[in-house]
């Protein structure tokens, strides 16, 4: 961070990341019941920076500056705050001690990572709903604002704010602690942490307008949290599998949307836009996920993503291998969505007729009633078979179901393809 003061620019997301780790750290020192106080003092430190740096430039070590000012703000707040009465002096001592640790102390770095980890585990307590866990993790560990979380989830600010208030009062009322759970409880908690991270990731990954970077930030944050858990001593193979899965997916984000904000199907993506660093990260964690016998849902999905990542081009994708992996996926998670995804691969390996037969039983599945991908996949298969009118009807049906604007434009393009195919068929 010393280099920052020389170039006059800050590290990307420094404030967001620093806010997250400082809130986690101060919450540990102040106690989880005072999580609001931790957030306020961190906010105060950032405001102080905002009032100072525009005139005086960057301090020598921007991150350490924020850290120190936040500690001092916390010490002032504890001295003012009568609620902490009997413990005040002890807390002030802890805060002063923590503030005096030099920024380059390697133990401090480790301590901060540990604080973040404990914070995520508390946010993902089974008594807190998954939606609230995600919002709370993003707010406290991720350094996202209420408005940013609301934008990422396409929700109202007030709804997110309320979710956070509820989660925090649960922390207070149930006296949740930052102690790591042990034994069987640790295993369960880890599973819910992964579930929350994966949910966060999927929310961001769902097709979105290319302009709105906040949802990409959501993917990056999920990946960062995954890496944090993977780097800890409690990581098990499925943690690495999830990180691998996310890294492979994020590596293709830039290629997935074109300059106009339209979706680019996998087969037309420019592989040069794939982020090789992230693919490398993906394979690194994929290898580590192979330790042990457990094969989780994340393992199978990571293996599918790895197979795509390995293919030098679309025509070289090993479809039979992917079909085999989908068979495993289906065995672990026999959900209609997995059946549908597997059908796309059946279409590649055995042909569109067989794929249509696979999805036929899904037509009356109530879970997929408003899922646009079911008619969209059907339309795609019918189009391949030259049944253009039926395909067009499917894409029209898909357009009547809820989906994002880029997805909508994609479906309209497919609809136009059907019409063009019909006209070409009449000419020849």
């Amino acid at each position, binding site marked *: 961070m010393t280099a920052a003061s020389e170039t*006059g620019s800050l590290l990307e997301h420094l404030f967001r990341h620093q806010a997250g780790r400082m809130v986690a750290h101060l919450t540990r020192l102040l106690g989880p019941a005072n999580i609001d106080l931790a957030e306020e003092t961190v906010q105060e430190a*950032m405001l102080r920076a905002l009032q100072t740096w525009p005139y005086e430039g960057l301090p020598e070590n921007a991150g350490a500056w924020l850290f120190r000012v936040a500690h001092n703000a916390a010490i002032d707040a504890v001295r003012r705050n009568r609620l902490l009465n009997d413990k005040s002096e002890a807390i002030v001592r802890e805060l002063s001690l923590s503030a005096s640790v030099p920024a380059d102390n390697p133990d401090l770095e480790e301590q901060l990572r540990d604080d973040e980890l404990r914070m995520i585990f508390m946010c993902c307590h089974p008594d807190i709903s998954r939606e609230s866990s995600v919002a709370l993790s993003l707010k406290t560990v991720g350094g996202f604002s209420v408005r*940013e979380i609301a934008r990422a989830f396409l929700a109202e600010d007030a709804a997110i704010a309320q979710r956070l208030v509820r989660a925090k009062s649960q922390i207070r009322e149930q006296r949740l602690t930052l102690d790591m759970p042990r034994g069987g409880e640790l295993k369960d908690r880890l599973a819910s942490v992964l579930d929350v991270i994966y949910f966060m990731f999927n929310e961001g990954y769902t097709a979105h307008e290319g302009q709105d970077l906040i949802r990409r930030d959501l993917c990056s944050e999920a990946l960062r949290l995954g890496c944090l858990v993977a780097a800890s001593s409690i990581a098990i193979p499925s943690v690495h599998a999830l990180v691998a899965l996310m890294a492979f997916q994020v590596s293709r984000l830039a290629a997935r949307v074109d300059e106009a904000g339209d979706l680019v199907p996998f087969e037309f993506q420019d592989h040069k836009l794939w982020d090789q660093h992230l693919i490398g990260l993906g394979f690194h964690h994929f290898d580590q996920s192979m330790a042990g016998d457990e094969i989780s849902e994340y393992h199978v999905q990571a293996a599918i993503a790895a197979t795509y990542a390995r293919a030098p081009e679309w025509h070289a994708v090993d479809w039979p291998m992917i079909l085999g992996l989908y068979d495993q996926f289906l065995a672990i998670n026999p959900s209609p969505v997995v059946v549908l995804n597997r059908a796309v691969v059946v279409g590649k390996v055995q042909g569109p007729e067989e794929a249509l037969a696979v999805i036929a039983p899904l037509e009356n599945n109530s879970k997929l009633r408003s899922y646009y991908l079911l008619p969209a996949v059907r339309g795609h298969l019918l189009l391949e078979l030259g049944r253009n009118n039926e395909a067009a009807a499917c894409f029209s049906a898909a357009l009547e179901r809820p989906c994002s604007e880029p997805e909508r434009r994609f479906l309209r393009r497919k609809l136009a393809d059907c019409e063009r195919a019909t006209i070409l068929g009449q000419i020849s």
Partner: protein
Amino acid sequence: MPQYMLLLHGDPAGWVKLSPEDMQKAIEKYMAWTKKPFTRDSKRLADEPGRVIRSQGGKPKATDGPYSETKEILAGYYTIEAASYDEAVKLALNHPQLEYGGTVEIRQVYGS
């Protein structure tokens, strides 16, 4: 070349609504301004509003005012060089202070 002082007034409470990410962006925009070729100086003023001394009945007296209705304070100033007042105004139009809801008062500094 003549120098002009850009007096930056603003309501610090306005910053509270910004997310950490947006705060960082704001700081980067201001700092970019301190590095402009025409910027000569930038100084922050203490955010606690100062006291005002005036003479009352021949004796100096310090008071806490006068403050206007708004919470706006003079947060600091930048000194820039420009060929003319109009030129200084034109440059100041791009100052981030305006983007963040504050005001910029432009005054020529004589003798510089």
